């Protein structure tokens, strides 16, 4: 089970998004493994909110920590 075989059978690629609802978005908390978990085309596509998610995730974690220890 090489990396290329893993990506072939389990990696998320643009062709898979065709079967998703038109308004479906791609999420991932990061860090992503390009070419293993998902292709760069998917990660960088219009439907990807990964960078927003990562950015918002920092704010959320900061807020949680503030509540817990503040």
């Amino acid at each position: 089970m090489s990396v290329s075989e893993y990506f072939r059978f389990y990696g998320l690629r643009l062709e898979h998004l065709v079967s998703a609802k038109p308004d479906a978005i791609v999420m991932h908390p990061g860090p992503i493994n390009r070419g293993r978990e998902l292709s760069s085309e998917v990660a960088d596509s219009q439907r990807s909110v990964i960078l927003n998610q990562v950015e918002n995730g920092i704010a959320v974690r900061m807020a949680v920590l503030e509540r817990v220890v503040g």
Partner: protein
Amino acid sequence: MSALLVKNGRIIDPASKFDDIADVLLRDGRIVEVGRGLAAEGAEIFDASGCIVAPGFIDMHVHLREPGIEHAETIETGSRAAAAGGFTSICCMPNTIPVNDNATVTSYIVERARQQAITNVFPIGAITKNSAGEELADIGSMKHAGIVAISDDGRPVMNARVMRRAMEFARSFDLPVIDHCEDLNLSAGGDMHEGLQSTRLGLRGIPSSSEDVMVARDILLAQTTGARFHVAHLSSRNAVAMVAYAKAKGLAVTCEATPHHFAITDADIAGYDSNYKMKPPLRTECDVNAVIEGIVSGAIDAIATDHAPHPGSEKMQEFEKCPFGITGLETALGLSLEKLVHTGKISLTRLVALFTTGPAGVLRLNRGTLRAGAPADVTVFDTEREWTYDANQSHSKSRNSPFHGRKFRGGPIAAIVNGHIAWRIDKAE
């Protein structure tokens, strides 16, 4: 358009529970129909009077040695030996050079078989890269290239964690995992079954427990993963009992037995004849009886030969030095008739099932039946003809059989593959 009409045989098709004198019409690679007094204009006629006509036999465990070890066997010669043994389909183990652990090797075998083989050939892929037991092989890519199962036959996966992962991936690709169950640490250095006879002969022993602990491990891993697990060539009383237990629990566990493991025992090893050396080793009468009981009860799903050709230059050495394995394609049916049917242990229908629906079910091959529309693979055999096996006349490239010179009652008459007569006895002998 090519048609073949097999007439007047006793047709036994376990899948459709058919057992009667009738004809089978084959056309364009498919079974057209089974019935009495069939006629087909322009069809070639095969007179099967006095014979049994069965779905094409499947041997799910053979070693064809190609690529890489062609001086022992090739896909062509192995398929010829198979057809002469009544088999129309064979599944080849991946321990070639290179090992069949990626789609390129699988495709080579498929293409080579298409050009050279006179039977169907279904490759089995390796579980791990180079069958080294460490990294998983390209299981998914090999499935797309044509493998029907995965196995590290002969070099069993010792690391239980690797086996667990293999089962998980195999399950996601709907492939059975076939294990040659042997704890290599327990069996290390052994040449024959560990017991009274090994002591008598002064040969180092392979304990039954080396097989049993791996059968147990794999059954438990199959339960954990939900994978389909198949025990190759099981030979011990405990192994049969554990498979029966797994089946009773509803696990997807199946197994096969070889003719030599139900036909002869460790007591038959005489004169240090290296043609009696194989893995698992010939075990005791108690184990042989358990294998036969398993065949009778249904715990054992299939008969497979583990046909393992070795050239004389390698096999004809001292018992401790020679490689493990014996040929088996041409003697499987004769031995099965002798030990199972003529003794009254099982019916002819059950015998046919062990060679057809049994292996086809394990591998989910769309074969092993004479239903209309099925591939036109037919095995014709008889139960009474007396003949003597001469290993020197074998269609295999190798001669390493302990059954040379053995007299048989009943055996293969013809193998019809894809609607064509691949082998028939009156032309061949």
